[in-house]
């Protein structure tokens, strides 16, 4: 049984590696690329924050947008602030 699980894991990892290789280079974080954009992260600047929302109003995962962990935290915090003030939606149906 244990062997089976191990095999599956290996299979999944291999697939993951293949997927990454097929996409080519890793996604770039837009904040590390040009640090001037960091000043734009503000709960009042909703037009900018809307880039980090899905159609339903969820926060876009960093794995999709390519944002690094540090700036993803900042963005998420400001989006949550804007949501509390009804500037951005919690969910959009």
């Amino acid at each position, binding site marked *: 049984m244990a062997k089976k699980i191990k095999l599956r894991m290996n299979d999944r990892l291999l697939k993951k590696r293949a997927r990454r290789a097929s996409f080519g280079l890793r996604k770039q974080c837009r904040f590390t690329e040009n640090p001037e954009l960091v000043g*734009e992260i*503000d709960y009042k*600047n909703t037009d900018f924050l809307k880039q980090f929302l899905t159609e339903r109003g969820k926060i876009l995962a960093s794995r999709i947008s390519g944002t690094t962990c540090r700036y993803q935290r900042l963005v998420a915090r400001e989006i949550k602030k804007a949501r509390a*003030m*009804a500037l*951005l939606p919690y969910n959009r149906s």
Partner: protein
Amino acid sequence: MQTQRYEALILTVPEITNDEAAELEKSVEKRLLEHNGKLVTYDRWGKFLLAYQVKKNEYGIYFLARFDVPATKKDEAIKELKSLFDLKFNAVVMRYLVSNLANDGVLTYKRPQSLEETPKDVDQFLKENKMSGLHRPSYQRSFEPAPKEVGKIDPIKEEQADKE
């Protein structure tokens, strides 16, 4: 004396009168002065369509206040300010958010456009931005005769001429 800068975004009901808005600003300033603070700027953002209903209101009016308070008295001053919104302006203020602001003196910020600023009339918007309409030229909207084009050859007439 060291001061700490804060900003407060206040969401009020859409039916707020000018008197009430002025009173809100005055009492905020008064509360701050009691604690040796100072109101730096006070902006009216205007009417907004909210992302969701707040206290059964579809619309709301935002105000942004920025103020300095001495670092030693900041907790008391903010507590007083919050109680002002919660108790005295209970009927007017729907929500508020007090947040820390960098002390470097930069007061510019970007904000979304309010409903009063967004152009309602398409024609006026096109005129102001010197754009031409996408679907109908202006002479079709009104009953003015179409301007005659000089020097252009009508493609249909040309085809007929070719056939002949």
